[in-house]
């Protein structure tokens, strides 16, 4: 059993979390890459999958596979029950108020496009959307599309040099034309944990709806959409131990009832003739066509698995990994950590003086270490911080170890020596 304990980076022995037992549940972590044990530090791109998820999807294909919602046969009934149970699981994990507030989508990108498209239909030229300078392209480009289509104005909350949203500027950005505030929960590029609760509180004072990009939020701790006070919350399965190509959009009642559909097709209508149409009630109204059934069920399994872990212990371990990595990497001369917000998820983005991030990534891979290099789909913030050619990003998960932090630091040092 796991129990939570106070830990410091140097006191691995005192950790109450059995990391090895956790790792044993992830088959993909048990392999060598280029002759070295895999050190997987690209968790902000996608997490590895536990047996609980792999076996659930396997079981579905072997025993329960059928299309949902429209069959009278037993398998279809079973598949439908599993799919709808996964929806309830998502609600539970987000602490949503009602199961019908959860729409299954392909991931955060589709969730935000859905809101931009459906919510966007009520917008007029000159209406304003507020985002932050810290956003992933998934929460920038859909608004650009809307800007090009109907002439909305995109306003940007600035970010400080250490990578924190400058909240003091938000009230000044809000005008009578502000229609939505959309920010990420946790920055994928820098790891900054944003004050989403405070942002939503300010928005509510002005009666402005809010959308939270939760791609990096859910993997690092329980999310409570009611406590955050947002209108929309988007998540991706692959970043939270579930399959790729599945995610969810939480939309507080009565949004889904009010918004027009996003896609048209089967399963989202009540009656169709060539003259008239009536839509199914939400969430079906937003799930046209056969959805990613096994993906949703896999996501449900991931969230169930996650819910059974000791969150305080996981958070303490991740905080200790972040502290250890910040210390070990920070000690390398010529290495600069990009993004030093006070509240961070376990992400360390860095550059080495005079060395191309891709070269570092290649040499780390040769040593069995998987990191992400480049601009992390967040060009604006990297440009602002003066690292337009990108960073090396090591993103940790609770299944990572302190030995892996040390392996990273050693490998970075070796890469630096080779490339200097």
């Amino acid at each position, binding site marked *: 059993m796991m129990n939570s304990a106070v830990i410091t980076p140097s006191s691995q022995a005192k950790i109450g979390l059995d990391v090895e037992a956790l790792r044993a549940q992830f088959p993909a972590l048990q392999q060598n890459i*280029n*002759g070295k044990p895999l050190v997987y530090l690209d968790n902000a791109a996608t997490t590895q999958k536990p047996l609980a998820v792999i076996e659930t999807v396997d079981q579905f294909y072997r025993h329960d596979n059928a299309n949902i919602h429209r069959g009278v046969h037993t398998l279809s009934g079973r598949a439908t029950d599993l799919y709808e149970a996964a929806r309830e699981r998502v609600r539970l994990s987000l602490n949503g108020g009602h199961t019908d507030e959860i729409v299954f989508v392909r991931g955060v990108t589709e969730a935000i496009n859905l809101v931009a498209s459906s919510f966007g239909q009520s917008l007029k030229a000159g209406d304003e959307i507020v985002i932050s300078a810290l956003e992933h392209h998934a929460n920038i480009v859909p608004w650009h599309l809307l800007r090009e289509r109907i002439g909305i104005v995109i306003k940007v909350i600035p970010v400080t040099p250490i990578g924190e949203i400058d909240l003091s500027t938000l009230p000044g950005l809000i005008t009578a034309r502000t229609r939505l505030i959309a920010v990420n929960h946790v920055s994928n590029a820098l790891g900054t944990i944003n004050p989403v609760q405070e942002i939503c509180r300010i928005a509510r004072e002005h009666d402005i709806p809010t959308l939270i990009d939760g791609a990096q939020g859910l993997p690092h701790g329980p999310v409570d959409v009611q406590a955050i006070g947002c209108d929309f919350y988007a998540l991706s399965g692959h970043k939270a131990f579930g399959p790729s190509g599945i995610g969810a959009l939480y939309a507080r009642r009565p949004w889904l009832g009010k918004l027009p559909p996003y896609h048209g097709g089967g399963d989202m209508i009540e009656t169709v003739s060539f003259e008239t149409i009536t839509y199914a009630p939400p969430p079906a109204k937003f799930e046209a066509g056969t959805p990613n059934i096994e993906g949703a069920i896999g996501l449900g399994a991931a969230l169930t698995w996650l819910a059974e872990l000791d969150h305080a212990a996981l958070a303490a371990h991740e905080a200790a990994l972040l502290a250890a990595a910040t210390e070990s990497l920070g000690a390398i001369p010529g290495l600069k950590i990009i993004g030093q917000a006070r509240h961070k998820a376990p992400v360390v983005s860095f550059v080495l003086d005079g*060395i*191309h991030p*891709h*070269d570092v*990534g*290649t*040499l780390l*891979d*040769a*040593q069995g270490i998987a990191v992400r290099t*480049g601009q992390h789909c967040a060009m604006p913030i990297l440009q602002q911080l003066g690292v337009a*050619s990108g960073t090396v990003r090591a993103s940790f998960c609770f299944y990572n170890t302190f030995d892996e932090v040390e392996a990273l630091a050693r490998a970075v040092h*070796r890469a630096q020596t*080779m*490339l200097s």
Partner: protein
Amino acid sequence: MANPQAAIAELIEEFAFFDDWTDRYQYIIDMGKQLPAFPPEKQDDAHKFHGCQSQVWFDYAWQDNHLKLQGTSDATIVKGLIALLFRVYNNQTALDILATDTDFLDQLGLKTHLSANRATGLVGMIQKIRVIAADAAGH
């Protein structure tokens, strides 16, 4: 001067000498360090080779029917890979270049070890060199 096929055989032999990819990359990096300096005034848009994630500049000339290649990159490993390509193609005749098998990146194991973007960039450079050779050969 060895012909391209002989240069490839030599590279394969040299690569086999190393136990792991870290050492192979060290070797590639060292090759890049021996690349003649690329004139800074040519590091402009006109000489940029597009299709790479890092910046690559490239120029060529024909001298006595032999292709003279110049190039560099802002990324150290890419510079080394350019040097590797030049070992095969620099100072060669158009006909020798066109007669060379292009799958040597596979044989060296580079296609599986490089990121997809870098491998694509490298293949793009080989194609560019072959187009230059085909033009010169009147194909």
